[in-house]
Protein backbone atom coordinates (compact mmCIF):
# COMPACT_ATOMS: atom_id res chain seq x y z
CA UNK A 1 0.00 0.00 0.00
CA UNK A 2 1.55 3.30 -1.12
CA UNK A 3 1.85 5.82 1.68
CA UNK A 4 0.61 9.34 1.12
CA UNK A 5 3.54 11.66 1.71
CA UNK A 6 3.30 13.85 4.82
CA UNK A 7 2.23 17.49 4.66
CA UNK A 8 3.99 18.18 7.92
CA UNK A 9 6.98 16.30 9.19
CA UNK A 10 9.35 16.79 12.12
CA UNK A 11 12.79 15.20 12.45
CA UNK A 12 14.90 15.25 15.58
CA UNK A 13 13.31 18.37 17.05
CA UNK A 14 14.95 19.68 20.25
CA UNK A 15 13.84 22.53 22.49
CA UNK A 16 14.81 23.69 25.99
CA UNK A 17 13.39 26.26 28.36
CA UNK A 18 16.35 27.46 30.38
CA UNK A 19 17.51 24.37 32.21
CA UNK A 20 14.41 22.30 31.38
CA UNK A 21 14.76 20.22 28.22
CA UNK A 22 11.24 19.72 26.85
CA UNK A 23 12.18 18.01 23.57
CA UNK A 24 15.32 15.98 22.93
CA UNK A 25 14.69 14.40 19.54
CA UNK A 26 11.04 14.33 18.49
CA UNK A 27 9.94 12.84 15.17
CA UNK A 28 6.47 13.14 13.78
CA UNK A 29 4.50 13.09 10.52
CA UNK A 30 0.98 14.16 9.57
CA UNK A 31 -0.66 13.14 6.30
CA UNK A 32 -3.68 14.56 4.47
CA UNK A 33 -6.95 12.79 5.22
CA UNK A 34 -5.53 11.16 8.34
CA UNK A 35 -5.76 11.79 12.07
CA UNK A 36 -2.37 11.58 13.77
CA UNK A 37 -2.43 11.33 17.54
CA UNK A 38 0.43 12.38 19.82
CA UNK A 39 0.38 10.59 23.17
CA UNK A 40 2.66 10.68 26.19
CA UNK A 41 2.71 11.30 29.92
CA UNK A 42 2.34 14.73 31.46
CA UNK A 43 5.40 16.79 30.62
CA UNK A 44 6.45 14.48 27.76
CA UNK A 45 6.69 17.54 25.50
CA UNK A 46 3.49 17.17 23.47
CA UNK A 47 2.32 20.76 23.79
CA UNK A 48 5.82 22.07 23.14
CA UNK A 49 6.01 20.02 19.95
CA UNK A 50 2.73 21.25 18.53
CA UNK A 51 3.59 24.85 19.45
CA UNK A 52 6.61 24.40 17.20
CA UNK A 53 4.30 23.18 14.42
CA UNK A 54 2.08 26.20 14.87
CA UNK A 55 4.88 28.77 14.95
CA UNK A 56 4.22 29.77 18.57
CA UNK A 57 7.65 28.40 19.58
CA UNK A 58 10.85 27.94 17.62
CA UNK A 59 12.94 24.75 17.82
CA UNK A 60 16.55 24.77 19.04
CA UNK A 61 17.48 21.99 16.64
CA UNK A 62 16.06 19.47 14.19
CA UNK A 63 14.10 20.00 11.01
CA UNK A 64 10.50 20.89 10.29
CA UNK A 65 9.38 19.94 6.79
CA UNK A 66 6.27 21.21 5.02
CA UNK A 67 5.52 19.25 1.85
CA UNK A 68 9.01 17.78 2.21
CA UNK A 69 10.71 21.18 2.26
CA UNK A 70 12.58 22.38 5.38
CA UNK A 71 10.68 25.36 6.78
CA UNK A 72 11.08 27.83 9.65
CA UNK A 73 8.07 29.40 11.36
CA UNK A 74 8.88 32.59 13.20
CA UNK A 75 5.31 33.32 14.26
CA UNK A 76 1.83 31.78 14.25
CA UNK A 77 1.14 33.87 11.15
CA UNK A 78 3.89 32.01 9.26
CA UNK A 79 2.29 28.67 10.05
CA UNK A 80 -1.10 30.04 9.08
CA UNK A 81 0.13 31.06 5.69
CA UNK A 82 0.78 27.35 5.11
CA UNK A 83 -2.80 26.52 6.10
CA UNK A 84 -1.88 25.25 9.57
CA UNK A 85 -4.27 26.14 12.41
CA UNK A 86 -4.12 25.22 16.07
CA UNK A 87 -6.50 24.76 18.99
CA UNK A 88 -4.28 25.41 21.99
CA UNK A 89 -4.67 23.60 25.28
CA UNK A 90 -6.00 26.79 26.92
CA UNK A 91 -8.04 27.66 23.80
CA UNK A 92 -6.64 31.19 23.31
CA UNK A 93 -10.12 32.76 23.17
CA UNK A 94 -10.79 36.33 24.31
CA UNK A 95 -13.67 35.68 26.67
CA UNK A 96 -14.82 39.31 26.77
CA UNK A 97 -15.45 39.25 23.00
CA UNK A 98 -18.36 37.58 21.29
CA UNK A 99 -18.22 34.36 19.29
CA UNK A 100 -18.00 36.09 15.92
CA UNK A 101 -15.19 38.43 17.07
CA UNK A 102 -13.26 35.41 18.35
CA UNK A 103 -13.60 33.48 15.10
CA UNK A 104 -12.14 36.47 13.25
CA UNK A 105 -9.60 37.63 15.85
CA UNK A 106 -6.38 38.56 14.06
CA UNK A 107 -8.02 38.49 10.61
CA UNK A 108 -10.96 40.80 11.00
CA UNK A 109 -13.06 41.57 7.92
CA UNK A 110 -12.89 45.23 6.93
CA UNK A 111 -15.64 47.36 5.49
CA UNK A 112 -15.39 48.07 1.79
CA UNK A 113 -13.89 51.25 0.40
CA UNK A 114 -12.42 54.11 2.37
CA UNK A 115 -13.93 53.01 5.68
CA UNK A 116 -12.14 49.69 5.33
CA UNK A 117 -8.83 51.42 4.64
CA UNK A 118 -9.36 53.39 7.85
CA UNK A 119 -9.73 50.12 9.72
CA UNK A 120 -13.50 49.95 10.10
CA UNK A 121 -14.91 46.49 10.80
CA UNK A 122 -17.55 44.74 8.75
CA UNK A 123 -19.25 43.05 11.68
CA UNK A 124 -22.28 42.11 9.65
CA UNK A 125 -20.20 40.04 7.21
CA UNK A 126 -18.27 38.42 10.06
CA UNK A 127 -21.44 37.47 11.93
CA UNK A 128 -23.01 36.02 8.84
CA UNK A 129 -19.95 33.90 8.11
CA UNK A 130 -19.66 32.88 11.76
CA UNK A 131 -23.30 31.78 11.76
CA UNK A 132 -22.65 29.71 8.62
CA UNK A 133 -19.59 28.12 10.20
CA UNK A 134 -21.55 27.20 13.34
CA UNK A 135 -24.27 25.64 11.21
CA UNK A 136 -21.78 23.71 9.05
CA UNK A 137 -20.15 22.22 12.11
CA UNK A 138 -23.54 21.65 13.74
CA UNK A 139 -22.59 23.67 16.80
CA UNK A 140 -25.77 24.82 18.51
CA UNK A 141 -25.54 28.41 19.69
CA UNK A 142 -28.37 30.83 20.23
CA UNK A 143 -26.35 33.69 18.81
CA UNK A 144 -22.84 34.41 17.54
CA UNK A 145 -23.13 37.73 19.39
CA UNK A 146 -22.88 36.01 22.78
CA UNK A 147 -19.72 36.92 24.68
CA UNK A 148 -17.58 33.81 25.11
CA UNK A 149 -17.60 34.09 28.93
CA UNK A 150 -21.31 33.22 28.89
CA UNK A 151 -20.63 29.87 27.16
CA UNK A 152 -20.11 26.46 28.74
CA UNK A 153 -16.74 24.74 28.58
CA UNK A 154 -17.97 22.51 25.76
CA UNK A 155 -19.22 25.43 23.74
CA UNK A 156 -15.94 27.28 24.19
CA UNK A 157 -14.08 24.21 23.02
CA UNK A 158 -16.37 23.98 20.02
CA UNK A 159 -15.73 27.64 19.17
CA UNK A 160 -11.96 27.12 19.33
CA UNK A 161 -12.25 24.04 17.13
CA UNK A 162 -14.53 25.88 14.71
CA UNK A 163 -12.03 28.73 14.46
CA UNK A 164 -9.23 26.31 13.60
CA UNK A 165 -11.23 24.30 11.09
CA UNK A 166 -12.63 27.41 9.45
CA UNK A 167 -9.16 28.65 8.56
CA UNK A 168 -6.98 25.51 8.62
CA UNK A 169 -7.18 24.35 5.07
CA UNK A 170 -4.33 21.82 5.28
CA UNK A 171 -3.48 20.98 8.88
CA UNK A 172 -5.59 21.35 12.02
CA UNK A 173 -3.80 20.76 15.32
CA UNK A 174 -5.73 20.23 18.56
CA UNK A 175 -4.14 20.06 22.00
CA UNK A 176 -6.38 17.95 24.25
CA UNK A 177 -9.59 19.13 22.57
CA UNK A 178 -11.80 16.97 24.77
CA UNK A 179 -10.03 17.31 28.11
CA UNK A 180 -12.69 19.48 29.77
CA UNK A 181 -15.72 17.98 28.08
CA UNK A 182 -18.62 15.76 29.03
CA UNK A 183 -19.50 12.62 27.10
CA UNK A 184 -21.90 14.25 24.68
CA UNK A 185 -19.61 17.17 23.96
CA UNK A 186 -16.64 14.83 23.51
CA UNK A 187 -18.61 12.87 20.92
CA UNK A 188 -19.39 16.11 19.13
CA UNK A 189 -15.72 17.10 18.94
CA UNK A 190 -14.73 13.61 17.77
CA UNK A 191 -17.36 13.77 15.02
CA UNK A 192 -15.99 17.16 14.06
CA UNK A 193 -12.48 15.72 13.84
CA UNK A 194 -13.65 12.92 11.55
CA UNK A 195 -15.51 15.37 9.34
CA UNK A 196 -12.43 17.56 8.98
CA UNK A 197 -10.30 14.50 8.21
CA UNK A 198 -12.78 13.25 5.61
CA UNK A 199 -12.51 16.62 3.89
CA UNK A 200 -8.84 15.77 3.27
CA UNK A 201 -7.26 17.85 6.02
CA UNK A 202 -4.42 16.47 8.13
CA UNK A 203 -5.56 16.44 11.76
CA UNK A 204 -3.11 16.31 14.66
CA UNK A 205 -4.57 15.59 18.08
CA UNK A 206 -3.09 15.30 21.53
CA UNK A 207 -5.06 13.19 23.99
CA UNK A 208 -4.63 11.33 27.24
CA UNK A 209 -7.67 9.14 26.57
CA UNK A 210 -6.69 5.85 24.93
CA UNK A 211 -10.23 4.88 23.89
CA UNK A 212 -10.58 8.22 22.22
CA UNK A 213 -7.22 7.91 20.46
CA UNK A 214 -8.15 4.46 19.22
CA UNK A 215 -11.52 5.72 18.04
CA UNK A 216 -10.30 8.57 15.81
CA UNK A 217 -6.58 8.18 15.13
CA UNK A 218 -5.11 6.58 12.03
CA UNK A 219 -1.57 6.86 13.38
CA UNK A 220 -0.12 7.20 16.84
CA UNK A 221 3.15 8.87 17.83
CA UNK A 222 4.40 8.15 21.33
CA UNK A 223 6.52 10.75 23.10
CA UNK A 224 8.43 9.94 26.23
CA UNK A 225 10.67 12.42 28.07
CA UNK A 226 10.88 14.62 24.99
CA UNK A 227 11.78 11.84 22.58
CA UNK A 228 9.67 9.95 20.03
CA UNK A 229 9.78 6.31 21.08
CA UNK A 230 7.40 4.91 18.45
CA UNK A 231 5.34 5.92 15.42
CA UNK A 232 2.72 3.31 14.61
CA UNK A 233 -0.46 2.74 12.63
CA UNK A 234 -3.44 2.30 14.91
CA UNK A 235 -4.36 -1.07 13.39
CA UNK A 236 -0.87 -2.43 14.10
CA UNK A 237 -0.99 -1.86 17.85
CA UNK A 238 -3.07 -2.17 21.02
CA UNK A 239 -3.88 0.14 23.90
CA UNK A 240 -1.78 -1.97 26.25
CA UNK A 241 1.24 -1.68 24.00
CA UNK A 242 0.84 2.09 23.60
CA UNK A 243 0.55 2.58 27.36
CA UNK A 244 3.61 0.42 27.88
CA UNK A 245 5.64 2.61 25.53
CA UNK A 246 4.30 5.79 27.13
CA UNK A 247 5.31 4.78 30.62
CA UNK A 248 8.60 3.23 29.56
CA UNK A 249 7.65 -0.32 30.58
CA UNK A 250 7.98 -1.61 27.02
CA UNK A 251 11.30 0.10 26.48
CA UNK A 252 12.73 -1.42 29.65
CA UNK A 253 11.47 -4.85 28.66
CA UNK A 254 13.08 -4.52 25.23
CA UNK A 255 16.33 -3.49 26.88
CA UNK A 256 16.19 -6.53 29.17
CA UNK A 257 15.68 -8.89 26.24
CA UNK A 258 18.57 -7.42 24.24
Amino acid sequence: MAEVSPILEARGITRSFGRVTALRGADFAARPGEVSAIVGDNGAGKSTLIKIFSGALQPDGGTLLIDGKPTLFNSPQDARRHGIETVYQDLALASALDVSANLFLGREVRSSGLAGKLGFLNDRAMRKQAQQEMADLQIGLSSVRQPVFTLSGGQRQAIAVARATAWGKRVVIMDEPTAALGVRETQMVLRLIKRVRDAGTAVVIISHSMPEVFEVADRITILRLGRTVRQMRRDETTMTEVVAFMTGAAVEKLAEIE
Partner: protein
Amino acid sequence: MSAPTQPEPVELRPAAPPSSSPLQRWLRAGLGANNLYILLVLIALMAFFSLISPNHAFFGTSNFLNIVWDSAETLLLAIGETFVIITAGIDLSVGTVLMVSGVSAAWVMAQTAGTPAQVTSGHFPHAGQAIILGIIAGLGVGLLAGAINGILITRLRLPAFIVTLGVFSVANGLGDLISSSGAAGQNAIPPVPDRFANSFGSGNLILGLPTLVFVSALAAIIAHIVLTRTIFGRRTFAVGSNLEGSRLSGVPVNMHVFLVYVLCGFMSGLAGIFDLARYQTVDIAGHSLDNLNAIAAVVIGGTSLFGGTGSIVGTVIGAFIPTVLRYGFTIQGVSSFWQDVVVGLIIIVAVFIDQVRRQRTT
Protein backbone atom coordinates in the same frame (compact mmCIF):
# COMPACT_ATOMS: atom_id res chain seq x y z
CA MET B 1 -32.24 27.67 22.73
CA SER B 2 -30.52 25.59 20.06
CA ALA B 3 -31.97 25.32 16.58
CA PRO B 4 -34.16 22.23 16.17
CA THR B 5 -32.86 21.44 12.66
CA GLN B 6 -29.34 20.75 13.92
CA PRO B 7 -28.68 17.21 15.05
CA GLU B 8 -27.22 16.85 18.53
CA PRO B 9 -26.09 20.43 19.02
CA VAL B 10 -24.07 21.39 22.05
CA GLU B 11 -26.63 22.48 24.56
CA LEU B 12 -26.59 26.07 25.64
CA ARG B 13 -25.54 26.13 29.23
CA PRO B 14 -24.72 29.62 30.47
CA ALA B 15 -22.25 29.77 33.34
CA ALA B 16 -24.13 29.30 36.60
CA PRO B 17 -24.32 32.49 38.65
CA PRO B 18 -21.95 32.31 41.60
CA SER B 19 -23.50 32.29 45.04
CA SER B 20 -23.58 35.83 46.35
CA SER B 21 -24.66 38.02 49.20
CA PRO B 22 -27.77 40.21 48.90
CA LEU B 23 -25.52 43.28 48.81
CA GLN B 24 -23.58 41.92 45.86
CA ARG B 25 -26.77 40.98 44.04
CA TRP B 26 -28.15 44.43 44.66
CA LEU B 27 -24.97 46.03 43.29
CA ARG B 28 -25.07 43.84 40.21
CA ALA B 29 -28.65 44.67 39.47
CA GLY B 30 -27.84 48.37 39.76
CA LEU B 31 -24.89 48.03 37.42
CA GLY B 32 -26.72 46.19 34.68
CA ALA B 33 -27.21 49.56 33.07
CA ASN B 34 -23.86 50.86 34.25
CA ASN B 35 -23.75 54.12 32.36
CA LEU B 36 -27.27 55.11 33.31
CA TYR B 37 -26.44 54.38 36.92
CA ILE B 38 -23.38 56.67 36.91
CA LEU B 39 -25.28 59.37 35.08
CA LEU B 40 -27.91 59.28 37.83
CA VAL B 41 -25.19 59.54 40.47
CA LEU B 42 -23.73 62.55 38.66
CA ILE B 43 -27.11 64.26 38.37
CA ALA B 44 -27.86 63.53 42.01
CA LEU B 45 -24.50 65.01 43.06
CA MET B 46 -25.09 68.16 41.05
CA ALA B 47 -28.64 68.53 42.36
CA PHE B 48 -27.41 68.00 45.91
CA PHE B 49 -24.67 70.64 45.67
CA SER B 50 -27.03 73.07 43.91
CA LEU B 51 -29.62 72.75 46.66
CA ILE B 52 -27.28 73.13 49.59
CA SER B 53 -24.97 75.81 48.12
CA PRO B 54 -25.63 79.42 49.20
CA ASN B 55 -27.94 81.08 46.61
CA HIS B 56 -27.62 77.89 44.57
CA ALA B 57 -24.25 79.27 43.47
CA PHE B 58 -23.16 75.80 42.48
CA PHE B 59 -25.36 75.96 39.43
CA GLY B 60 -24.26 79.51 38.58
CA THR B 61 -22.86 80.17 35.11
CA SER B 62 -19.26 80.77 36.11
CA ASN B 63 -19.14 77.73 38.38
CA PHE B 64 -20.75 75.64 35.69
CA LEU B 65 -18.21 76.88 33.12
CA ASN B 66 -15.34 75.94 35.41
CA ILE B 67 -16.75 72.48 36.02
CA VAL B 68 -17.14 71.83 32.31
CA TRP B 69 -13.70 73.23 31.60
CA ASP B 70 -11.93 71.16 34.26
CA SER B 71 -13.87 68.04 33.33
CA ALA B 72 -12.93 68.51 29.67
CA GLU B 73 -9.26 68.51 30.66
CA THR B 74 -9.69 65.41 32.82
CA LEU B 75 -11.57 63.83 29.92
CA LEU B 76 -8.63 64.22 27.52
CA LEU B 77 -6.43 62.29 29.95
CA ALA B 78 -9.19 59.80 30.70
CA ILE B 79 -9.78 58.97 27.02
CA GLY B 80 -6.18 57.82 26.65
CA GLU B 81 -6.36 56.09 30.00
CA THR B 82 -9.51 54.21 28.91
CA PHE B 83 -7.66 52.56 26.03
CA VAL B 84 -4.74 51.69 28.32
CA ILE B 85 -6.96 50.23 31.04
CA ILE B 86 -9.01 48.19 28.55
CA THR B 87 -5.73 46.47 27.59
CA ALA B 88 -5.37 45.63 31.31
CA GLY B 89 -2.62 48.22 31.66
CA ILE B 90 -2.35 51.41 33.67
CA ASP B 91 -0.72 54.80 33.01
CA LEU B 92 0.19 56.67 36.19
CA SER B 93 2.26 59.26 34.32
CA VAL B 94 -0.52 61.24 32.57
CA GLY B 95 -0.58 64.21 35.01
CA THR B 96 3.13 64.96 35.09
CA VAL B 97 3.43 64.30 31.35
CA LEU B 98 0.68 66.91 30.90
CA MET B 99 2.73 69.27 33.05
CA VAL B 100 6.05 68.69 31.31
CA SER B 101 4.34 69.02 27.89
CA GLY B 102 2.91 72.38 28.94
CA VAL B 103 6.26 73.53 30.30
CA SER B 104 8.06 72.42 27.12
CA ALA B 105 5.52 74.21 24.94
CA ALA B 106 5.95 77.41 26.99
CA TRP B 107 9.73 77.13 26.85
CA VAL B 108 9.79 76.60 23.07
CA MET B 109 7.40 79.53 22.56
CA ALA B 110 9.65 81.76 24.65
CA GLN B 111 12.73 80.70 22.68
CA THR B 112 11.14 81.30 19.29
CA ALA B 113 8.82 84.26 19.84
CA GLY B 114 11.51 86.93 20.12
CA THR B 115 14.68 87.93 21.97
CA PRO B 116 14.79 87.08 25.69
CA ALA B 117 14.40 90.78 26.50
CA GLN B 118 11.32 91.10 24.27
CA VAL B 119 9.73 87.98 25.71
CA THR B 120 10.26 88.96 29.36
CA SER B 121 8.67 92.32 28.68
CA GLY B 122 5.67 90.67 27.03
CA HIS B 123 6.50 91.34 23.37
CA PHE B 124 6.23 88.43 20.98
CA PRO B 125 7.26 89.59 17.48
CA HIS B 126 7.14 86.05 16.05
CA ALA B 127 4.10 84.85 17.98
CA GLY B 128 2.56 82.93 15.06
CA GLN B 129 5.50 80.65 14.43
CA ALA B 130 6.24 80.36 18.15
CA ILE B 131 2.72 79.11 18.87
CA ILE B 132 2.94 76.45 16.19
CA LEU B 133 6.40 75.30 17.33
CA GLY B 134 5.28 75.32 20.96
CA ILE B 135 2.25 73.16 20.19
CA ILE B 136 4.42 70.74 18.22
CA ALA B 137 6.86 70.58 21.13
CA GLY B 138 4.11 69.93 23.68
CA LEU B 139 2.50 67.19 21.62
CA GLY B 140 5.93 65.77 20.81
CA VAL B 141 6.84 65.50 24.48
CA GLY B 142 3.54 63.70 25.15
CA LEU B 143 4.14 61.28 22.26
CA LEU B 144 7.70 60.68 23.42
CA ALA B 145 6.63 59.92 26.99
CA GLY B 146 3.97 57.53 25.68
CA ALA B 147 6.52 55.84 23.41
CA ILE B 148 8.93 55.40 26.33
CA ASN B 149 6.17 53.85 28.43
CA GLY B 150 5.18 51.59 25.54
CA ILE B 151 8.69 50.42 24.72
CA LEU B 152 9.61 49.66 28.34
CA ILE B 153 6.38 47.74 28.87
CA THR B 154 6.43 45.69 25.66
CA ARG B 155 10.16 45.22 25.03
CA LEU B 156 11.57 44.91 28.54
CA ARG B 157 8.32 43.32 29.79
CA LEU B 158 8.29 45.51 32.89
CA PRO B 159 5.00 45.99 34.74
CA ALA B 160 3.07 49.03 33.48
CA PHE B 161 2.53 50.13 37.05
CA ILE B 162 6.26 50.53 37.71
CA VAL B 163 7.22 51.90 34.30
CA THR B 164 4.60 54.65 34.34
CA LEU B 165 5.33 55.48 37.98
CA GLY B 166 8.97 55.92 36.97
CA VAL B 167 8.01 58.13 34.01
CA PHE B 168 5.70 60.06 36.37
CA SER B 169 8.72 60.91 38.52
CA VAL B 170 11.06 61.61 35.60
CA ALA B 171 8.52 63.97 34.01
CA ASN B 172 8.02 65.70 37.35
CA GLY B 173 11.75 66.33 37.71
CA LEU B 174 12.19 67.45 34.10
CA GLY B 175 9.31 69.89 34.42
CA ASP B 176 11.07 71.49 37.38
CA LEU B 177 14.41 71.57 35.55
CA ILE B 178 13.07 73.13 32.36
CA SER B 179 11.05 75.71 34.22
CA SER B 180 13.98 76.76 36.38
CA SER B 181 16.26 77.22 33.35
CA GLY B 182 13.73 79.14 31.29
CA ALA B 183 14.01 82.58 29.75
CA ALA B 184 12.26 84.12 32.72
CA GLY B 185 14.82 82.85 35.19
CA GLN B 186 14.58 80.76 38.32
CA ASN B 187 11.46 78.73 39.04
CA ALA B 188 9.21 80.50 36.64
CA ILE B 189 7.42 79.56 33.47
CA PRO B 190 8.16 82.08 30.71
CA PRO B 191 5.17 84.15 29.58
CA VAL B 192 3.30 82.83 26.55
CA PRO B 193 2.03 84.97 23.65
CA ASP B 194 -1.41 86.47 24.31
CA ARG B 195 -2.56 85.21 20.96
CA PHE B 196 -2.05 81.64 22.19
CA ALA B 197 -4.26 82.20 25.24
CA ASN B 198 -6.78 84.03 23.08
CA SER B 199 -7.10 81.16 20.64
CA PHE B 200 -7.02 78.17 22.96
CA GLY B 201 -7.79 79.60 26.38
CA SER B 202 -10.32 81.93 27.98
CA GLY B 203 -9.99 84.47 25.17
CA ASN B 204 -11.96 82.32 22.79
CA LEU B 205 -15.34 81.24 24.11
CA ILE B 206 -17.72 79.74 21.55
CA LEU B 207 -21.32 79.58 22.80
CA GLY B 208 -19.81 80.53 26.13
CA LEU B 209 -17.53 77.48 26.15
CA PRO B 210 -13.76 77.31 25.64
CA THR B 211 -12.14 75.58 22.65
CA LEU B 212 -11.02 72.75 24.91
CA VAL B 213 -14.60 71.61 25.49
CA PHE B 214 -15.15 71.17 21.76
CA VAL B 215 -11.79 69.47 21.29
CA SER B 216 -12.54 67.06 24.14
CA ALA B 217 -16.01 66.33 22.82
CA LEU B 218 -14.61 65.64 19.36
CA ALA B 219 -11.86 63.46 20.84
CA ALA B 220 -14.47 61.49 22.80
CA ILE B 221 -16.62 60.92 19.71
CA ILE B 222 -13.63 59.76 17.66
CA ALA B 223 -12.41 57.53 20.51
CA HIS B 224 -15.86 56.00 20.87
CA ILE B 225 -16.02 55.19 17.15
CA VAL B 226 -12.49 53.79 17.13
CA LEU B 227 -13.21 51.61 20.14
CA THR B 228 -16.52 50.20 18.92
CA ARG B 229 -16.21 50.13 15.15
CA THR B 230 -12.59 49.54 14.13
CA ILE B 231 -10.01 46.79 14.11
CA PHE B 232 -7.89 48.85 16.50
CA GLY B 233 -10.71 49.00 19.03
CA ARG B 234 -11.60 45.32 18.68
CA ARG B 235 -7.99 44.33 19.27
CA THR B 236 -7.73 46.67 22.26
CA PHE B 237 -10.46 44.63 23.95
CA ALA B 238 -8.94 41.34 22.77
CA VAL B 239 -5.49 42.15 24.14
CA GLY B 240 -6.99 43.08 27.51
CA SER B 241 -9.12 39.98 27.60
CA ASN B 242 -6.40 37.47 26.69
CA LEU B 243 -2.95 38.79 25.78
CA GLU B 244 -1.31 35.45 24.97
CA GLY B 245 -4.42 34.21 23.19
CA SER B 246 -4.47 37.35 21.06
CA ARG B 247 -0.83 36.82 20.18
CA LEU B 248 -1.51 33.23 19.17
CA SER B 249 -4.49 34.42 17.12
CA GLY B 250 -2.21 36.63 15.06
CA VAL B 251 -2.74 40.01 16.73
CA PRO B 252 0.56 41.96 16.84
CA VAL B 253 0.13 42.47 20.57
CA ASN B 254 3.39 44.29 21.32
CA MET B 255 2.77 46.83 18.59
CA HIS B 256 -0.80 47.26 19.74
CA VAL B 257 0.05 47.85 23.40
CA PHE B 258 2.83 50.24 22.34
CA LEU B 259 0.40 52.28 20.24
CA VAL B 260 -2.11 52.45 23.08
CA TYR B 261 0.50 54.02 25.40
CA VAL B 262 1.58 56.38 22.62
CA LEU B 263 -2.05 57.45 22.25
CA CYS B 264 -2.30 58.03 25.99
CA GLY B 265 0.90 60.12 25.93
CA PHE B 266 -0.44 62.15 23.01
CA MET B 267 -3.66 62.91 24.90
CA SER B 268 -1.58 64.09 27.87
CA GLY B 269 0.41 66.38 25.58
CA LEU B 270 -2.80 67.77 24.11
CA ALA B 271 -4.17 68.40 27.59
CA GLY B 272 -0.88 70.13 28.49
CA ILE B 273 -1.25 72.57 25.58
CA PHE B 274 -4.77 73.53 26.64
CA ASP B 275 -3.78 73.80 30.29
CA LEU B 276 -1.01 76.23 29.33
CA ALA B 277 -3.41 78.26 27.19
CA ARG B 278 -5.96 78.46 29.97
CA TYR B 279 -3.68 79.58 32.78
CA GLN B 280 -0.85 81.07 30.63
CA THR B 281 1.49 79.26 32.97
CA VAL B 282 1.91 75.74 34.31
CA ASP B 283 1.40 74.77 37.90
CA ILE B 284 4.42 72.51 38.35
CA ALA B 285 3.20 70.83 41.52
CA GLY B 286 -0.50 70.99 40.69
CA HIS B 287 -0.78 67.95 38.43
CA SER B 288 0.51 65.17 40.62
CA LEU B 289 -3.01 63.86 41.28
CA ASP B 290 -4.35 64.29 37.74
CA ASN B 291 -3.57 60.62 37.15
CA LEU B 292 -5.92 59.65 39.97
CA ASN B 293 -8.69 61.87 38.61
CA ALA B 294 -8.27 60.34 35.16
CA ILE B 295 -8.22 56.80 36.52
CA ALA B 296 -11.24 57.61 38.71
CA ALA B 297 -13.13 58.84 35.64
CA VAL B 298 -12.32 55.62 33.81
CA VAL B 299 -13.17 53.15 36.58
CA ILE B 300 -16.27 55.07 37.68
CA GLY B 301 -17.25 54.91 34.01
CA GLY B 302 -17.32 51.14 34.20
CA THR B 303 -14.05 50.23 32.49
CA SER B 304 -12.55 47.20 34.22
CA LEU B 305 -9.05 47.41 35.67
CA PHE B 306 -8.81 43.70 34.82
CA GLY B 307 -9.02 44.59 31.13
CA GLY B 308 -11.29 43.50 28.31
CA THR B 309 -14.31 45.72 29.02
CA GLY B 310 -14.99 49.42 29.03
CA SER B 311 -16.54 52.33 27.19
CA ILE B 312 -15.84 55.94 26.34
CA VAL B 313 -19.45 56.88 27.16
CA GLY B 314 -18.86 55.78 30.75
CA THR B 315 -15.57 57.68 30.87
CA VAL B 316 -17.24 60.90 29.68
CA ILE B 317 -19.77 60.74 32.52
CA GLY B 318 -17.07 59.62 34.96
CA ALA B 319 -14.84 62.59 34.07
CA PHE B 320 -17.34 65.00 35.65
CA ILE B 321 -17.48 63.34 39.03
CA PRO B 322 -14.08 64.34 40.53
CA THR B 323 -14.60 67.93 39.30
CA VAL B 324 -18.15 68.22 40.59
CA LEU B 325 -16.95 67.06 43.99
CA ARG B 326 -14.13 69.58 44.07
CA TYR B 327 -16.32 72.56 43.16
CA GLY B 328 -19.10 71.32 45.39
CA PHE B 329 -16.76 71.21 48.36
CA THR B 330 -15.16 74.55 47.52
CA ILE B 331 -18.51 76.33 47.41
CA GLN B 332 -19.46 74.78 50.73
CA GLY B 333 -16.25 76.12 52.18
CA VAL B 334 -14.96 72.60 52.71
CA SER B 335 -11.25 72.32 52.05
CA SER B 336 -10.69 71.11 48.49
CA PHE B 337 -8.25 68.63 50.01
CA TRP B 338 -11.35 66.66 50.91
CA GLN B 339 -11.81 66.15 47.20
CA ASP B 340 -8.63 64.06 47.17
CA VAL B 341 -9.87 62.06 50.11
CA VAL B 342 -13.25 61.43 48.50
CA VAL B 343 -11.84 60.64 45.05
CA GLY B 344 -9.49 58.14 46.65
CA LEU B 345 -12.39 56.45 48.40
CA ILE B 346 -14.50 56.50 45.23
CA ILE B 347 -11.75 54.76 43.28
CA ILE B 348 -11.62 52.04 45.88
CA VAL B 349 -15.40 51.60 45.83
CA ALA B 350 -15.46 51.58 42.03
CA VAL B 351 -12.78 48.91 41.92
CA PHE B 352 -14.69 46.87 44.47
CA ILE B 353 -17.81 47.06 42.32
CA ASP B 354 -15.71 46.04 39.33
CA GLN B 355 -14.48 43.03 41.30
CA VAL B 356 -18.03 42.00 42.14
CA ARG B 357 -19.01 42.30 38.52
CA ARG B 358 -15.99 40.29 37.43
CA GLN B 359 -16.99 37.40 39.66
CA ARG B 360 -20.15 37.27 37.63
CA THR B 361 -18.36 37.15 34.30
CA THR B 362 -15.69 34.52 34.92
